[in-house]
């Protein structure tokens, strides 16, 4: 029997068992009869690409190390030639990939990655040869500018990924040197067209997932570095709006098959929301926010302040728009997490006007508890174990935070835990009774 029907059968068996069409034992007998699912062409292709890239990088680094062994014995002209050698070799490999191996993803990706590393190595070796003062920020800037066109010319996602991985570090260095981290935005625009086009060309592929992962992290880190310092305490609204927008990302056919590129955004968004909300369950956090709060933070100049506020408003509008879209698509379980930015704004305004931190603490404790319970309920309803576990993790994080919260007395914490535990037990009993009364339930 050919390989693809076997893979289809392996994919179908869990659904058939869950629907009661096939007994688990029969499914196991079918699996053992037809053998394991064959490796898919996509997995084989990915393996070839990974091996190609690793091989190219290791060969390149090995060449540099062998040449560096006798570096001190070499004359300056010889060192110069050796410094340029990786760059020339990388360019030849990339040129060959473009001319003769255009259809090979492995060739394009590995030659692109090798050439990016060769650019950095060549410039670094020339710096060592001529004792050039080190400035990591300008070094990375030069390497990024020389490398990013390769992503477009070779259609090499690894080049874009390396660019996105370095970009937040470079922006952070500009913040330390007071040159301004706003340069993050024009630099991000160099990679954005490639990443967006690649993602929408094949939204379900590994390339889309990887580009989305590094893009999401770079955008979040870069926004925080570039804009948050000018916002001071208003940065909490920025974080709330960004994580919410990330979490609410979805495509039209998500119900059938979520696009691979949405997963990094959702995971980062969900995790970010929980972390932020946990922090905001502490009264100390609200007292600090109230003490330092100002609508007009001390930005370096008016442009920086304007861009910071524009970022907040744009992200808030985006998260609100995505929430509306989710509601119209009848994804009602996204309403509670979608309200995070509004809750933050409301509580920030309340605490700055009244100096009372109790209400915001109660609001955010209720918010996280609702998130966790909603996730558990949704996961049970849709039979999605991952979502159930996520909900349990959320509740556990809240419980842990309150257990060690010295702002609450032992009695209050104890009573709250007893009430919450009783509620979970009651739900458990009711659920078991319902299952017991269901038609066809085992006695």
């Amino acid at each position: 029997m050919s390989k693809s029907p076997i893979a289809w059968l392996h994919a179908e068996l869990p659904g058939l068992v869950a629907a009661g069409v096939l007994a688990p034992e029969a499914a196991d007998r079918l699996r053992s009869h037809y053998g394991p699912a064959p490796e898919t062409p996509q997995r084989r292709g990915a393996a070839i690409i990974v091996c190609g890239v690793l091989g190219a990088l290791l060969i390149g680094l090995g060449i540099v190390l062998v040449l560096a062994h006798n570096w001190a014995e070499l004359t300056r002209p010889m060192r110069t030639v050796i410094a340029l050698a990786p760059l020339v070799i990388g360019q030849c490999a990339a040129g060959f990939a473009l001319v003769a191996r255009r259809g090979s993803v492995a060739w394009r990706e590995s030659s692109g990655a090798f050439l990016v590393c060769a650019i950095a190595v060549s410039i670094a070796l020339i710096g060592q040869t001529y004792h050039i003062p080190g400035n990591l920020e300008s070094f990375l800037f030069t390497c990024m500018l020389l490398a990013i066109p390769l992503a477009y010319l070779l259609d090499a996602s690894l080049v874009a990924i390396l660019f996105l991985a370095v970009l937040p570090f470079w922006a952070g260095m500009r913040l330390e040197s007071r040159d301004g981290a706003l340069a993050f935005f024009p630099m991000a625009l160099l990679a954005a067209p490639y990443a967006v086009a690649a993602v929408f060309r094949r939204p379900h592929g590994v390339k889309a997932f990887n580009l989305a992962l590094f893009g999401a992290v770079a955008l979040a880190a870069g926004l925080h570095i570039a804009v948050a310092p000018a916002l001071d305490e208003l940065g909490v609204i920025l974080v709330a709006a960004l994580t919410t927008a990330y979490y609410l990302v979805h495509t039209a056919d998500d119900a059938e098959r979520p696009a691979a590129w949405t997963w990094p955004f959702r995971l980062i968004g969900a995790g970010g929301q929980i972390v932020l909300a946990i922090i905001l369950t502490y009264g100390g956090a609200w007292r600090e926010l109230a003490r330092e709060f100002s609508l007009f933070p001390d930005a370096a100049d008016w442009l920086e302040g304007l861009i910071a506020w524009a970022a907040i408003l744009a992200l808030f509008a985006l998260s609100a728009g995505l929430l509306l879209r989710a509601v119209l698509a009848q994804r009602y379980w996204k309403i509670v997490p979608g309200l995070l930015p509004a809750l933050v704004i409301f509580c920030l305004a309340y605490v700055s006007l009244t100096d009372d931190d109790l209400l915001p603490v109660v609001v955010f404790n209720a918010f996280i508890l609702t998130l966790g319970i909603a996730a558990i309920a949704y996961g049970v309803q849709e039979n999605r174990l991952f979502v159930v576990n996520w909900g349990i993790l959320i509740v556990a994080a809240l419980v842990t935070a309150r257990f060690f919260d010295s702002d609450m007395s032992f009695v209050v914490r104890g009573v709250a835990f007893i009430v919450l535990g009783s509620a979970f037990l009651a739900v458990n009993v009711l659920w078991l009774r319902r299952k017991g009364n269901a038609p066809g339930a085992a006695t």
Partner: protein
Amino acid sequence: MKSRALVLTAFAALVVVQLAVPASMIVKRESTLRTGERFLFKTAPIDPYDAFRGRYVWLSFEAATATISGETFESGQRIYASIATDDEGFAYFSTASAAPPDSGPYLAMKVSYTGVDDTVTLQWPLDRFYMDEHLAPEAERAYFEMNRADETETDVYAAVRIKNGFPVIENLFIDDVPIAEYVQREPPAE
């Protein structure tokens, strides 16, 4: 076919740019080393913990101030320091101004800060000397010990080639011996 030709043309242009950046670094510095004027600048004591970072020796120079005449400067501003030579043959900065001098050698630098007595403290554009990492520990020890003030008459200095205000380090010397040769000659410390 048209798009393929466009891609190959763009790649060829990128190759030229990628080679031009390191090549321009090399050409400028080789030109300075071959045709620039040679000056000897004494080095200054530095924190021994920071003396060596990886493969290079962290440099600090004694000549770090110059006289200014009425001009005001801000920290980080570009400044041009005129170079003079003392009786022992070591270089120092006599005056500094916002524009390159009409004649005589000079070095393009940045202002660190301005003093109250018409002097300006300068920020050197050179700060390191790369070395073989196997010689590094001894080089670090020798460089630090020989730079300690009032404890030795040994001169530690850097030979710097300068052309049109642009400097390139030629070598680092201890007692008129290149540092790499010096540490290989001296026995290791107990």
